[in-house]
């Protein structure tokens, strides 16, 4: 059976199709509810995927990811409350349009822009991913070690506002990844004579705690007791003329390219893609003053930009094992759950699965057109009538059940809770969470490869930096770490 047939027969089976449709609908709901976000939803979903077929699990991840990125536009346009951080730029022109009575038109443009951005991004993943994977076949243990270090450094430096805190978080993640039995020597490390720690800290347990508990506490702090009234969510029907669609094409192309570029960069997320796309559209416009006052091009740029980041962020994740953003890190977690090691070998050992996931990213982008249509958007808007305070215990219960079913251990509930409280404090003190997760994922890979490289070179450390590719990646890593220091020094010189 050739690869195309293998991919298509895998994706178009009943289970993966049902998973994609159901998850896309769920994703729009999640995006539409301020306080919930795709990271939290996927973190909660992952424990349930243990017993599923990989393409069913990955189809759900793809559906929630693409669906929620569009869903975030609904409250952004109707209420000026971004459903997800990536929808902040959508509020700039979406809300003024809604105030003019053009909410339905803005939502329609957002829906089409999201679908087109996601589709362009999925095509980029399908074309660039395999090429990059082939190029990385020349990598040995030293290169893999530096790739892991580069990923850690880029996420540590680029995510958050303080590079020192980002790198500190990355190191904490790497250290947490050493807990348990050493896979090479069998030595028990940081287990404190506890049998349950021998297998290490469960990635999903930590993920659920870190990413689900802080938003739950934030919802409790907001204590929304009423939800919104039906009158606040009323939508008048609207048509978008063909001439307007044609006028948006250049914006869609520009924003797609920006989003794809941002997605490939480790550490940058959908919110950055949306802002850059919005600014580029404003700069290119003949009437930049109309932006921020209800210009539909602004909505199209922001929504197309944030969705075109989605699949592109999977390019470094699937080929190198370095996630472009937190959701890509969660996808790596989903792959690990199913015993699949991300990296170039993944493409060669499981082409049907990787190809299937790429097709799922494409299909779920197109599904936005179906599940995000005018009638559906009206229904999704109604979820905002739920009092936010009711979500607090229900998410808590879903977290508990999701974590408990992984290993059937009550101790995991407490680990999740402690991780969540730590995550809450970290967020408040500007310590980014993504480097911790990446450290947990890449830590074992980094350790195994550095030790393997040193075994091969009989302890010669210079072997790590004398091979051409490893030297280049090592220099790039060093450059990334030094970049904020050099930037700070030059800033100080300029101001002096």
């Amino acid at each position, binding site marked *: 059976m050739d690869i195309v047939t293998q991919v298509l027969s895998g994706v178009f089976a009943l289970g993966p199709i049902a998973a994609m449709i159901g998850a896309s609908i769920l994703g729009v709901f999640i995006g539409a509810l301020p306080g919930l976000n795709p990271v939290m939803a996927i973190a909660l979903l992952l424990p*349930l995927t243990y*017993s599923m077929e990989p393409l069913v699990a990955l189809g759900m991840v793809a559906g929630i990811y693409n669906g929620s990125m569009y869903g975030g536009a609904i409250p952004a346009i109707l209420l000026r409350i971004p459903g997800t951080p990536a929808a902040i730029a959508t509020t700039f022109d979406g809300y003024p349009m809604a105030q003019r009575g053009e909410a339905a038109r803005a939502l329609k443009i957002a829906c089409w822009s999201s679908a087109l951005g996601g589709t362009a991004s999925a095509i980029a993943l399908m074309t660039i991913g395999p090429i990059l994977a082939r190029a990385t076949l020349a990598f040995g243990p030293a290169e893999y070690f530096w790739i892991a270090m580069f990923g850690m450094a880029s996420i540590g430096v680029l995510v958050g506002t*303080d590079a*020192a*805190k980002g*790198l*500190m978080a990355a*190191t*904490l993640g*790497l*250290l947490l990844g*050493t807990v348990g039995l*050493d896979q*090479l*020597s069998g*030595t028990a*490390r*940081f287990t404190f004579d506890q049998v349950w720690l021998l297998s290490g800290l469960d990635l999903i347990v930590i993920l659920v705690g870190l990413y689900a508990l802080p938003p*739950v*506490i*934030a919802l*409790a*702090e*907001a*204590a929304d*007791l009423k939800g919104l009234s039906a009158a606040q969510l009323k939508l008048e029907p609207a048509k978008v003329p063909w001439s307007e669609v044609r006028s948006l094409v250049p914006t869609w192309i520009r924003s797609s390219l920006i989003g794809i570029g941002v997605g490939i960069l480790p550490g940058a997320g959908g919110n950055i893609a949306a802002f850059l796309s919005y600014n580029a559209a404003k700069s290119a416009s003949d009437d930049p003053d109309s932006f921020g006052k209800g210009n539909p091009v602004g909505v199209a740029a922001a929504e197309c930009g944030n969705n075109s980041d989605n699949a592109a962020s999977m390019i470094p994740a699937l080929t190198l094992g370095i996630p472009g953003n937190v959701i890509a890190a969660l996808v790596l977690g989903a792959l690990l759950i199913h015993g699949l090691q991300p990296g170039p070998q993944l493409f060669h050992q499981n082409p049907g699965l990787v190809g299937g996931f790429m097709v799922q990213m494409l299909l779920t982008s197109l599904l936005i057109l179906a599940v995000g249509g005018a009638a559906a958007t009206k229904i999704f808007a109604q979820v905002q009538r739920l*009092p936010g*305070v*009711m979500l*607090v*215990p*229900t998410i*808590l*219960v*879903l977290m*508990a*059940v999701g974590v*408990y*079913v992984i290993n*059937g251990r*009550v101790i995991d*509930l*407490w680990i999740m*809770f402690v991780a969540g*409280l730590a995550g809450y*404090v970290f967020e*408040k*003190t*500007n*310590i980014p969470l993504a480097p911790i997760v990446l450290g947990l994922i890449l830590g074992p890979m980094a*350790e195994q490869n*550095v*030790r393997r490289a*040193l075994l091969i070179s009989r302890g010669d450390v210079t072997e790590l930096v004398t091979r051409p590719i490893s030297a280049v990646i090592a220099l790039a890593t060093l450059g990334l770490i030094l970049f904020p220091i050099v930037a700070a020094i030059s800033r100080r010189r300029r101001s002096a």
Partner: protein
Amino acid sequence: MERRQDIVLGAIFAALGLFAAVKATAYSGASGTYPMVLGLVLAAFGVIVAAKAGLRGRATPRPLTEHTGRVAVTVIVGAGYLALVPILGFYTASALVVLALPVALGFWQPVYLAVTAAVFVAIVWTVFSIVLEKPLPTEFWQTF
């Protein structure tokens, strides 16, 4: 950057890193070297964060919570829920937390709460116990 918080935070991370480095010296060969280096690097970053805050941090306090009372209620009720799961059983404890936590946060609509709790627990039971057949902590009445 808030001075006092970041100094404390940096000190905690530095202490954690040093503890890990010292602990790792007990592990043989490369099993210990890698975590020891990581521990020292973590300690170094902790010192950098604390030092930066000490030199350039703002003295104005940065609130750690938006509403301390509600955070405390959520954490206490959440911890109580996790403690009750193995004692009362998963579904009983879950129904209780769905009823109690909104009330503790000021939401008082008994009928709405009761219906939501019943529907939500029924959905969770259907998905996890019927469809996925996942074993969950036994309900307390089943042990009699």
